[in-house]
């Protein structure tokens, strides 16, 4: 399909060049001292000028006939044909031919630029593998389609090949390049037993991978699907400009009609006024104005994916440029999400080992990071067969029967609810505190800690530098913990002791607060939520823009999110804000600039100061400048990051 378009383009270019040559040759002949015997023969001149006119514009004329047959009066081809035909009719041959040729120059450039940006973004998205090398048990190898990979298949990946499927390395080790997915330029080292993701490129060593899912469920396919469906979401600016174009053309055409008929009825000079009307028609096409806006957003989304961020629609990029507040989930987003047991205290009559053993027994079935850490720290766990009646109380803790005893492991709230008598002030440590009770009696306390990621502080600093007013943290942690983390990371606000179901409400409060602080007309009033996906999906979808961490986040969160950070690097958020601002800035500049020039030439044309020549050159010129401006989004490098 692309080659067909390219062929079309080549053809058009040669037509434009030939007609330009012909046109200038005519000009030289006519105005040079070489006597041009037939110069005064109007019909002959008309014939001569019609040649470059038709060479450059026959498709425009053909389409205009077609358009008018289908009642498309406001068709740009028809309007261009009408304007040039009008000019020919009143003897302005030169202008008519020039207008058509320059109009086509503009169209050509526009198509060229669009193709160019499509190609450059397509390159970014070329992560889909074309084939896979399947190894049979007897050692023979067959090249198969990635779609035919089955779970459990062993695939050979040679140096430099794309990894066709998500799986586990079963043989070999080496560096793989993940940049197409994550934007991370440093290769990742993998060895036997490591997980590997489709779409990455193998380094210098041969490795063997066992597929752990089918192609349709692989990372590559999921990403491509997200990108495909992203097509349906347009930004406000894009919507504005298409809506505007629906009114712009009719208004200009009606003005053209009015200006070529009304004034001459009273003051005469039909030819002069019709020419002014034709000048109007020449500027009536809004294409150039319209095209630069989606192009800028397209480039912006492309630039984001170059940095390893998947933006699911240009509207989200626009929102990123208008943020008032960014809300972070704490665990797993700002912190590592991996807890470590730091201290265990046992009540009198119990040993530390015993406390851990009971705690581990109840937490065994839970996937919560706190539970995992406690289970991890237990050296000699109970046999799972004596554990029964496990009751998971979300956000509070777990109750279960171990042997004949009823064990409760949970936070302060759960202990109060269960009526366990504990001196809570006894442990004044900072961290996550899990109390353990056996048959209604407090037997010990475990303190765990989750440390912030090394670049969380930098990420928050750079976000604030970008002018985001508030950076808020939501957490289920105790107030003491939240306060410490908030101070450590330089957050402007935090909300603590939230149960998972409270987080949406906390976010809504933040949204209310933004509304009360800002004027209603203010556009910088949006809120983003960043989470890793554990219990986050509802909050992610409630925010104006939901950001999920891709490699750690859950599938549900990535599905619900509007933007996915593929390699979890929070520093990229500030980069994305910069890209978003730049995109919005470029498209706004283009709109204002193009509209101003159009308006200027409509005015000049109306007063008879600008003729068709200057009008078409101004129009094409402004189109080219706007498009070039938008194309700057394609060349964004890591300087923005």
């Amino acid at each position, binding site marked *: 399909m692309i080659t067909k378009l390219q062929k079309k383009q080549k053809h058009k270019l040669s037509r434009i060049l030939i007609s330009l040559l012909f046109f200038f040759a005519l000009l030289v002949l006519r105005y040079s001292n070489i006597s041009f015997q037939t110069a005064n023969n109007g019909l002959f001149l008309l014939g001569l000028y019609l040649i470059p006119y038709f060479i450059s514009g026959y498709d425009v004329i053909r389409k205009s006939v077609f358009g008018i047959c289908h009642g498309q009066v406001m068709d740009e081809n028809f309007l261009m044909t009408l304007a040039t035909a009008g000019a020919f009719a009143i003897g302005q041959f030169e202008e008519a031919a020039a207008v058509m040729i320059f109009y086509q120059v503009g169209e050509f450039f526009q198509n060229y630029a669009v193709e160019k940006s499509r190609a450059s973004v397509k390159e970014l998205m070329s992560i889909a593998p074309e084939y896979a090398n399947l190894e049979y048990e007897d050692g023979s190898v067959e090249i198969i389609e990635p779609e035919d990979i089955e779970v459990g298949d062993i695939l050979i990946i040679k140096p430099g090949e794309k990894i066709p499927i998500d799986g586990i390395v079963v043989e070999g080790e080496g560096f793989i390049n993940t940049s197409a997915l994550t934007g991370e330029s440093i290769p990742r080292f993998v060895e036997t037993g490591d997980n590997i993701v489709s779409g990455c490129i193998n380094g210098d060593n041969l490795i063997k991978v066992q597929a752990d899912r089918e192609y349709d469920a692989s990372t590559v396919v999921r990403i491509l699907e997200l990108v495909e469906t992203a097509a349906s*979401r347009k930004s406000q600016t894009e919507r504005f400009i298409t809506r505007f174009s629906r009114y712009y053309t009719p208004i200009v055409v009606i003005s053209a009609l009015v200006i070529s008929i009304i004034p001459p009825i009273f003051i005469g000079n039909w030819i002069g006024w019709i020419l002014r009307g034709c000048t109007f028609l020449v500027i009536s096409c809004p294409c150039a104005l319209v095209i630069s806006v989606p192009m800028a957003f397209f480039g912006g989304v492309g630039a984001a994916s170059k940095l390893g961020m998947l933006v699911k629609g240009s509207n989200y990029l626009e929102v990123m440029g208008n943020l008032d507040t960014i809300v972070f989930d704490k665990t797993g987003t700002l912190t590592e999400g991996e807890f470590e047991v730091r201290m265990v205290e046992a009540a009198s009559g119990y040993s530390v080992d015993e406390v851990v053993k009971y705690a581990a027994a109840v937490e065994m079935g839970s996937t919560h990071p706190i539970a995992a850490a406690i289970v991890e720290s237990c050296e000699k766990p109970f046999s799972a067969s004596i554990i029964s009646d496990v009751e998971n109380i979300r956000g509070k803790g777990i109750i279960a029967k171990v042997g004949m005893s009823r064990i409760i492991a949970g936070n302060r709230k759960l202990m109060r609810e269960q009526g366990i008598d504990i001196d809570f002030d006894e442990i004044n440590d900072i961290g996550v505190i899990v109390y353990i009770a056996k048959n209604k009696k407090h037997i010990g306390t475990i303190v765990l800690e989750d440390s912030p990621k090394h670049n969380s502080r930098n990420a928050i600093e750079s976000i604030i530098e970008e002018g985001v007013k508030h950076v808020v943290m939501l957490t289920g942690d105790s107030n003491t913990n939240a306060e410490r983390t908030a101070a450590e990371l330089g957050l402007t606000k935090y909300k603590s002791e939230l149960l998972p179901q409270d987080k949406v409400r906390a976010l809504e409060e933040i949204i209310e607060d933004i509304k009360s602080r800002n004027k209603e007309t203010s556009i910088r009033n949006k809120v983003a939520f960043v989470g890793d996906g554990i219990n986050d999906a509802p909050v992610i979808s409630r925010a104006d823009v939901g950001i999920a961490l891709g490699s750690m986040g859950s599938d549900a969160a990535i599905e619900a999110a509007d933007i996915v950070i593929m390699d979890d690097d929070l520093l990229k958020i500030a980069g994305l804000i910069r890209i978003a601002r730049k995109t919005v800035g470029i498209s706004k500049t283009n709109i204002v600039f193009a509209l101003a020039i159009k308006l200027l030439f409509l005015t000049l044309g109306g007063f008879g100061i600008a003729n068709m020549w200057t009008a078409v050159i101004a129009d094409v010129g402004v189109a080219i400048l706007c498009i070039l401006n938008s194309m700057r989004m394609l060349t964004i490098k890591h300087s923005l990051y």
Partner: protein
Amino acid sequence: MKKTYKIEVDCPVCADKMERAAKKTKGVKNVSINFMMLKMNVEFDEGANPETVMQEVRTNCKKIESDCEVFY
């Protein structure tokens, strides 16, 4: 039901016209065209047969823009 189709069209204004023409087609609930991606997202009415509806969508688009193409 939602489906995405490849399209071919020259300019964003024409794409907007195609979008409106496609929206008016019977059996179509909503349409969104992304000009830069050359993609058409079609949401069908319940019980509509995408194949026949898309045939009609293509005809309607062709009417307003002879140069366009819808691949279905």
